[in-house]
């Protein structure tokens, strides 16, 4: 596909997803306790979002890596909860 064809086909979908992302952040701001923005997952998301401003290809892989557990050794104890979508260290049950 040419660049113009990709834009014609996918622009409105990308625009809608951008608005959904902004709406998610606005919704967090409206939450009664105001705490959502401090959630480590949201902080990781905001940090990873900086990749959207990058001009280098490979943004998806870099976001995936940014949200991943960077450690290399298996852990001893099974955490209380499953994967959360963003590595937040000890906050999500890793024991090292």
């Amino acid at each position, binding site marked *: 596909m040419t660049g113009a064809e990709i834009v014609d086909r996918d622009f409105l979908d990308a625009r809608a997803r951008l608005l959904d992302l902004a709406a998610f952040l606005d919704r967090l701001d409206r939450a009664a306790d105001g705490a959502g923005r401090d959630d480590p997952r949201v902080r990781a998301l905001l940090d990873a979002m900086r990749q959207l401003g990058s001009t280098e290809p490979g943004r*998806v892989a870099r976001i995936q890596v940014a*949200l991943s557990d960077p450690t290399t050794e298996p852990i001893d104890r*099974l955490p209380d909860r499953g994967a959360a*979508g963003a590595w937040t260290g000890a906050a999500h049950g890793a024991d090292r």
Partner: protein
Amino acid sequence: MRYLDPHAHMVSRTTDDYRAMALAGCVAVTEPAFWAGWDRSSASGFADYFRQLTEFEPTRAARFGIDHSCWLCLNPKEGHDRGLAREVLAILPEFLDRPTVLGVGEIGLNKNTRNELATFEDHVALALDRGELILIHTPHLEDKLKGTRLIIDALRHAGADPDRVWIDHAEEHTLGLIRDAGFWAGLTLYPTTKASPARAADMIETFGADRLIVSSACDWGDAAPTGVPTLALELRQRGHAESLIRRIVFENPCDFLEQCPKFRRPARG
């Protein structure tokens, strides 16, 4: 267009899903043993599950003209329980001998614990000892990159032949690792937590179609049993050749699965 869905947990899907898949051109599914969303209480629960996968489910699929074969193991999530793992590994060989069982899977890691890794290594040893194909589940989300690396290291250490191993649930940050190590890589078209059809098409364009297997991985969650034909449509809309699409949805999975003599390659139609 005839296609295979080589990773589909049909025990969790309705008859309507079989019908929708058949209407979309599905001619064969292979179903890995997995975590049911809740922990089973004993090894006998797994024996019943293995009977369901080898006796009942093929007859359900056959009503829609779909060949059903399966993979057996103790899944990575319940594999953290080493006592249970030993009990299930003890009953596994008699079920692996059954005529529609293609290999050991889906084994792997869930939260990357030492116990999970030990259970994974036990299954790999059993598979290599018996000459079985291996299907591997890589962990979800933030655990995937680390788990994929641990799995590749363990497979190398065990001396597994990469030609006979399919490492599934690859994404943008793990597909290159898997392929560079010589293994077959799987993309699963599972909404929200894995690959969308558009991102899968992007990965095919970026990495090529060699040693690539796509599937829906549909299960008891919010999944899309027609993920494979949806990817085919995405590729077609982007102007890719029918020969590339057929390779991805039909020839590639057949080429891998045919290494097991029990697999029957469906007619191309």
